[in-house]
């Protein structure tokens, strides 16, 4: 029952976001992106456990399950176009629970693709992200901004 309500809420949110995006098409650049980033970050924070479970199940099917502590947090990626989504972090259980977000910086030089992922204990975009010690990334689901 509770799950049903949650799912309904998610679908409603998706519908609202979609409507907002469609409406924003006539208002100019920016609003759709803001809605998308905010909406997806909100969805990730609200449904992190379910997404975590989904990723866990998918990995289980391939015999690559994670037995330690995991958590799903929002991830913001810059460098190769902007992306927003969910990242599953894994590591020291005491530190995993403090992770608020992951910032990803990626690039491309010819065919070389550098990629750095920083799990942080802050979800603020401004300032220097404080890295969560002993925690890294195991999976990412992202959408282009």
């Amino acid at each position: 029952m509770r799950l049903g309500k949650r799912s309904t809420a998610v679908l409603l949110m998706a519908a609202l976001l979609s409507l907002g995006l469609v409406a924003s098409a006539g208002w100019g650049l920016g609003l759709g992106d803001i809605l998308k980033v905010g909406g997806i970050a909100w969805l990730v924070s609200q449904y992190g456990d379910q997404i975590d479970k989904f990723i866990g199940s998918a990995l289980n099917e391939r015999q690559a399950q994670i037995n330690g502590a995991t958590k799903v947090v929002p991830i913001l990626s810059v460098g190769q176009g902007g992306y927003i989504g969910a990242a599953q972090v894994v590591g020291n259980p005491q530190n995993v629970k403090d992770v608020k977000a992951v910032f990803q910086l990626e690039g491309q030089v010819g065919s070389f693709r550098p990629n750095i992922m920083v799990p942080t204990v802050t979800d603020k975009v401004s300032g220097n992200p404080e890295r969560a010690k002993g925690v890294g990334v195991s999976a990412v689901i992202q959408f282009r901004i």
Partner: protein
Amino acid sequence: MLRRVKVVPLALAVALFAALAAAAAFSAASVSYRSAERDGHRVGEVLIGDQVVIVLRTSAGGYVPLERAEVVASRLRAALGEELGARDIEVMPVAGGSALYIGDRLIVTANQAEADAQGATPEALASLWRSNILGALGIADVSPEAPASGQEATPSQEPAPSQGQTAKPAAAAGDSIDWTGTAQKWVPIFSLETEGAYIGAAQVAGPPAQVAKVKGVAELRLNFQNIGRIFVYVPVSAISLTKLDRVQGVSVWATGDIGLVRF
């Protein structure tokens, strides 16, 4: 017109994401954990649905009961994603106590300290947790060959089988992993993607003993045009094309790769 074309994939992306979350919500039995007070002490409880199946009363490995419950819940959640029978859930002797396994996956260890706190033997305690899990999942106990339920779990096993027995896993969260310290190293990474295969190096990090086992990282990357993408990183202990032997507790911090083959 152009804007409309842009909006469609955006809306699709959000709807996809929502569908993913909804699908996840319905998959597998719901496992959760919480802090509770029992006999004047804070304990960590692991629940399946609304039934408490494991109660952890003691700290271990630097983790308080609630943190242990979180880790156990995470393991249980992962294990319950598969089709299970009573024989898949086993109690096995381990150094310092008894451990509850689902398949080949360690769920929780009942060490002597936890057993003492619960007034039972480690084996009895682990068996009790097993019974609780079977009960919560509605699986009939066909009583495997091993220790399972009946065993002298009784004495201190407190009340009844199901609801929140006090269980105190020996090694709690980190059970088989010593989380002291963090090590990093660079290893080869092989990435299989929708557009081709890439090879390069990945920086992995984790407990020193675990990091030492890592021989490489397997990456699966799916790109969905301009809509989005999915990455999965699996640090492995052996380079193999047929099996992913994940090294637990290790994660990826950075990667750098170049194209090898284009599909």
